[in-house]
């Protein structure tokens, strides 16, 4: 029994090592800008978007195809939004309301 348990634990640990955990990165919207101009992700990773300004924002993610986009909707001050990037490719992130609030995302 102890031997079987030890093998099971070893297998689980092996899986944990073999399948990397998804990463979540927080992007801060402050001063009517994003705090990063670009970021590289792996499929399944997430971006969280904070709103540290005192006005509403509206994050819109374009890509990876030319016709694909996701509008995360209006975001009040203090609210956090999240988006999971499941497809590889190049994305553009921008605020619908503030055209200069933008960044590039590359997903491998």
């Amino acid at each position, binding site marked *: 029994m102890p031997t079987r348990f030890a093998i099971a634990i070893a297998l689980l640990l092996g899986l944990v090592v073999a399948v990397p955990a998804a990463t979540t990165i927080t992007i801060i919207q402050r001063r*009517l800008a994003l705090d990063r101009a670009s970021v590289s992700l792996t499929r399944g990773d997430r971006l969280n978007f904070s709103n540290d300004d*005192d006005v509403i924002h509206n994050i819109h993610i374009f890509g990876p195809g030319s016709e694909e986009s996701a509008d995360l909707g209006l975001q009040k001050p203090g609210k956090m939004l999240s988006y999971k990037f499941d497809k590889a490719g190049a994305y553009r992130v921008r605020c619908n*309301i*503030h055209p200069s609030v933008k960044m590039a995302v590359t997903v491998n």
Partner: protein
Amino acid sequence: MRNMFLDLLRRTITPQTRARAGTLPASVDRRRPSFLHRLGWRLPSVLLAALLAVAVTAPALAVPSFAIQTGQPCAACHIGAFGPQLTPYGRDFKLHGYTANDGKDHGLPLAFTTQTSFTHTQQPQPGGAAPGFRDNDNFAVDQLSLYYAGKIASDVGGFIELNYDGVAQKAALNNVDIRYVREGQLFGQDVLWGITVNNNPTVQDPWNSTPAWGFPYNQSALAPTPTASTLVDGGLGQRVVGVGLYTLWNDFLYLESDLYKGLDAPTLAALGQVPGDGDQTISFAPYARVAVIKDWGDKKNHAEIGAYGLSADVVPGGDQTLGFGVRKTDMALDASYQYISDPSKVTSDRLSAHTTYIHETGKLSLDGLALTGALPDHWLDTMRFDVSYSFAATITPSVQYFRTVGTPDANYWTTPNGSPNSDGMILEVAYVPWGKPDSPFPNINVRLAVQYINYFSFDGSYANVSKNNSFYFSLWTAMKF
């Protein structure tokens, strides 16, 4: 509330209408006050009722339809929480063709503003400050303006203003700026490019250092103003139509080129303009603009330095050259600086400064030389510098020094001694209670301001120049339908 407003308006108007039927013809009493003027002290109560009526029925901010379209308070786009002085985001919104939005359907982007005022000049103006107004201490409805301002299609937006001028007592098409905008990449950097169709050189400019949207943002039409001004300094406003191409590369380099065509007299009259009141042209007038911009210090500092120019064959207004043409060419430099104490808060304190220097050359036509006796060549330079500090987007004191100097010529300028020279200072304090994220009245915005103009010289004279100094108290309201 609407009924209360209508009752008050009816009671205010009715006695005046009856009295008007019994008055002498205008030719007998040339200074008979206008209808709006005769409203006198009742005007503030009418306006207050109007404001309250609108405040409880329609959302509003300034230019209110822009604010509603974006879900942003006035202070996001405007220094001092009221137009037209733009913040960096306000410039961005304009450069992107007025199309940024919150994705909701807010209906037609229609807005309404009113400007009312009281003007006191240091000495009365014999004959009346304007037809229908007294020598001094005049109340006036300066402007009633209706706007279509906002997104038209996905890449097309516009700003179209119709005015009723309560001093001149006429309606007219005012500023127009319709844009088509696209974005892309050039040399590995972001590039924004667009097409503008507008009717006033510099109305399309996003910086408040150029004439159309420069300080002062409103001014009395019942106080004396200097005679001479350059062509690009409003000389062709609403008298031309033009199309231009502009581009902003890498948020650093701004380039623009426009070509204007003067409107003929019948068209001007149809649009509400008085053809002979200002410079007239039916020729083409090229306009060019270049600017470099730089932000630094976590977006706390914003600077711009640039140049612009305009050239056109015009017939000066007011019979200045007996109807003979003048080739005017304006070359100008400008600069802007803004310091934002906390860019993450639209209500943070903001310092802003603007300056421009315009050099104009004027070449009189050969026929005009012989018959007017004027010099063949004239120059006219205008310089302005203003600085303001907005406390919490609520109280904004401003000061400006202005100076115009040029070639003295008694056969060219219509000033008493033939000199176009004037200089002076403008002091202003504006108070805007709302237009911020936490404003208790999100449906309305108002701007109360007191402005004092002090001349050091006026139309070439230094003697008794203070008689032209004036106080101007104004109430500016904005609301969306």
